[in-house]
């Protein structure tokens, strides 16, 4: 039996395996990205960056529950200039790094992309989908085909790098939105961002636990929804999909790949299984592939549609 290959081609970017660190997890410094690379991830995304620095919401910002995490970090980030300073010479890292860029108006995204142009990022991700931060994502009306087109077209003109558009699971006609992104020049779809917002109340304190009261749901609770979103998007577009939401085992990853994903994001799983979850998932995928006679990820992508 030959060892199956985990390598993938994600719109021209070569990944040694399909696992990707999604934005908002550990992506605050180059040193942590190196650690994520050493832990076996195929690619990593930095914490979303806006033009100006943001302190984000007060604590508690992230709270675990039985089926995942609820978070309202509030896009804290040191701004575009500082981010460019932190993430220099990314070629030193053994894996491709994706810049997650946020803004309110199309022009804001372009200004950030310009600032990051010399860092050596492999792709730009546009999360037009955060459910809990005023001025960004869904709360800025970015979850419509019109707004998606406008932002993606503007960024398309500003960079030659592949553009990933990150979508919200809240959108009922998610295929249409993915199509709008593809038509405007996006090279891949990241699906999905967190669901919600949701709320957790501490009944003794009689108070929502997150300081922002509501936050996005990630992890296990999100997984069947994320898988369905990826399935719908696969029917609607030709560009590759980074399936993200609740993946913490090789089996989950394969399920997402069969729904149509080329790569898979692993965020909340880090809390459940530790930072070396990337290695663990890869080994599990490999074992399952050998047992079931698959040689490449490509062979499995989208086969649940057949």
């Amino acid at each position, binding site marked *: 039996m030959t060892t199956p290959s985990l390598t993938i081609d994600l719109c021209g970017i070569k990944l040694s395996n399909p696992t990707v660190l999604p934005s*908002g*997890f*550990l*992506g*605050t*410094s180059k*040193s*942590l990205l*190196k*650690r994520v690379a050493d832990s076996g991830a195929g690619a990593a995304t930095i*914490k979303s960056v806006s033009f100006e*620095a*943001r*302190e*984000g919401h*007060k*604590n*508690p*910002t*992230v*709270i*675990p*529950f039985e089926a995942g*995490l609820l978070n309202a*970090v509030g896009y*804290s*980030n*040191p*701004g575009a200039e*500082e981010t460019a300073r*932190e993430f220099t010479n990314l070629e030193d890292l053994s894996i491709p790094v994706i810049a997650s860029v946020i803004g309110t108006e199309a022009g804001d995204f372009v200004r950030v992309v310009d600032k990051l142009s010399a860092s050596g990022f492999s792709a730009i991700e546009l999360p037009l989908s955060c459910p809990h931060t005023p001025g960004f994502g869904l709360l800025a009306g970015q979850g419509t085909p019109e707004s998606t087109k406008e932002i993606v077209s503007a960024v398309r003109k500003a960079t030659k790098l592949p553009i990933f558009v990150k979508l919200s699971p809240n959108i009922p006609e998610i295929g249409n939105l993915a199509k709008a992104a593809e038509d405007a020049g996006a090279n891949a779809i990241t699906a999905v961002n967190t669901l919600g917002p949701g709320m*957790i109340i*501490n009944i*003794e*304190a009689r*108070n929502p*636990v997150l*300081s922002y009261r509501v936050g996005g749901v990630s992890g296990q609770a999100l997984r069947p929804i994320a898988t369905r979103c990826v399935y719908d998007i696969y029917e609607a577009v030709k560009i590759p999909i980074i399936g993200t939401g609740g993946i913490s085992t090789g089996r989950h990853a394969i399920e997402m790949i069969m729904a149509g994903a080329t790569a898979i994001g692993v*965020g*909340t799983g*880090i*809390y459940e299984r530790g*930072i070396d979850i990337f290695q663990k998932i890869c080994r599990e995928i490999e074992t399952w592939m050998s047992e079931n006679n698959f040689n490449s990820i490509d062979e499995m992508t989208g086969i649940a549609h057949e």
Partner: protein
Amino acid sequence: MSKGFEQPVMMKIDKIISESDDAKSFMFRHNIDYKPGQFIMVWLPGIDEKPFAVSYSGDDFFGITVLERGKSTKHMHGMGVGEQLGIRGPFGHGFSIPDNIKDGSGNACVIGGGCGMASLSVLIESLQDNNTTILTGATTKTTLLFKNRYKDITIFTDDGSEGTKGYPTNSLEDLHKENSYNIIYTCGPEIMMSKVYEFCKKHNIQCEASLERYMKCGIGICGQCVCDGQMVCKDGPVFDSQALDNMSDFGNYSLLKSGKRVSLKEYGEWRGC
């Protein structure tokens, strides 16, 4: 490994102890599975949530010692017995006690500065029966913590108002000649800890230091507390010599709440204390 309380558990303040001019301890009648050096997140509903060491620990109680610094700690200082705080944790990796200290064949030294003593106090209790030197420093007499809690404690104040004038690190050279330490534990201002680390390196002594970084999630996922690829909340807050050797940010840089990486001097000024 146990994840502790994943969500805040509301606990009634059972007793309040005034420890110094600007520090109070809050005691709770609860058991938590705590190892010296770990920390907990303390939630003040509607206000904020902040990290604290456990400074008292027993079978059916524990306590935290809180220095008044800003909004949350000021609010806590205004609280009374019977009021509730939300506790999640404990989190992170604590101090280790090598066999030669446990069996009494070696010598240990503990150096605390300011409210760093809060992170060391439970460790000191578990070291009490062994050959341990305890050094503590504070700016002035009225801010000293736990000076009557231990049998033998050597006091230093910046202004000489109690004990020896100067920093505890000044006397390390002489004390080491006398006791030849196997391990030195430290928590306090990072400048002090980095001096202790350098001293240990020079004399080939094992060092364990408890670091402070701005914390958000507390559970190793957001990356806010990073120090050279290490998450202080999960991989630390206690790091040993070998880990510190690879942490060039130690003693030099820290992240502000926005994630901006600044010098410790700028981080200290941003504190407003």
